[in-house]
C-alpha cells in the first residue's frame, strides 16, 4: 500500500516529493541569499510547499472534506499580506542605505 502511494504519478508521494523539493529550495534561498529579495523568494517557495501539502493531504486522507483547500487559501492570503509589508520594509531600508544587501543592515542586530 505504501509503495503504491509512493511516486506513482498523481499519488500522494509524488505531491509530497514536489513539496519537499520546493521547501528545500526555499530554505537554501533564505539561508544563502545576501539580497533581501532572494530571502523573500525563498519564503514564497516555502509557503507554496506548505500549501501544496495541505491540499494533497486533504485529497488523499478520506473524510477531511475541503479543509486543506481553505488552509492553502489562507496561506496565499498571508503570503500576499507579507509581500506587501515586505516591499514597504525594503523601501524603508533602501531609503536608509541606498541598497537592500542584508550585509549592509547588520547593525539591526544591535
Amino acid at each position, binding site marked *: 500500500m505504501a509503495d503504491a502511494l509512493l511516486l506513482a*504519478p498523481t499519488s500522494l*508521494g509524488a505531491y509530497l516529493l514536489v513539496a519537499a523539493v520546493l521547501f528545500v*529550495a526555499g530554505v537554501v534561498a533564505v539561508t*544563502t541569499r545576501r539580497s533581501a529579495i532572494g530571502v523573500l523568494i525563498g519564503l514564497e*517557495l516555502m509557503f507554496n510547499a506548505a500549501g501544496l501539502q495541505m491540499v494533497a493531504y486533504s485529497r488523499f486522507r*478520506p473524510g477531511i472534506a*475541503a479543509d486543506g483547500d481553505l488552509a492553502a487559501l489562507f496561506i496565499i492570503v498571508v503570503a500576499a499580506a507579507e509581500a506587501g509589508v515586505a516591499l514597504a520594509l525594503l523601501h*524603508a531600508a533602501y531609503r536608509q542605505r541606498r541598497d537592500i544587501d542584508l550585509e549592509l543592515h547588520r547593525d539591526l542586530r544591535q
Partner: protein
Amino acid sequence: MTAALLFWICAGTAMAGALGAAVVRNLFQAALLLGLSLVGVAGLYLFLDAGYLACVQLIVYVGGVLVLILFATLFSSDVLGLVQRAPRWAMPVGAVSALLAAGVAWRLADAGLRAVSAAPAATPSPATPLGDLLIGPWLVPFLAAAALLTLALVAAVALVQRFRLPEDDRG
C-alpha cells in the same frame, strides 16, 4: 498516460523553477523562475481537483506577489549579480540547511504516508463547497484574514510614508 505526462511536466516545472530561483545569481531571473514554479504548482492544484485554488494561485501569486517582487528587484544595486561574489560561507551553509530541510521533509512525508495508508479506505466524502466552510467552521479565520489584509495595507502605507516632525522644517 497523457495525464501522467502532464502531471510530471507540471511537477518538473515547479521543482526546476524552485531550484533555479534558489541558486541563480541574477535576481531578476530568480524572480521569473519563482513565477515558473508558481505556475507549475497551479497546474498541480488542477490535478488535485482544486480549480479554484489554481485560479487564486495564478491571480494572487503570479499576478500580485510576483509583480511586487519584480518591482522590489529595483531596490537592489546588483540585480544582475555581477558585482558581488557569493559569500564564502554560502556553499557550506546552503548544503547544511538543505540537508536539514530534506531530513525534516523526509520524516514528515514518511509519517504522512504511513498515516494515510493506515487510515481506513473510507469512501471519499463529497467535497463541501468552499463557501459553506468559510461561513461555517472557518468563519473566525476568514474574518481574521480580512483584518490581517487591512492591517497589512495600512502598515505598508505607514512604513513608506515620510513622517516629518515640525522641528525638521527648521533644519
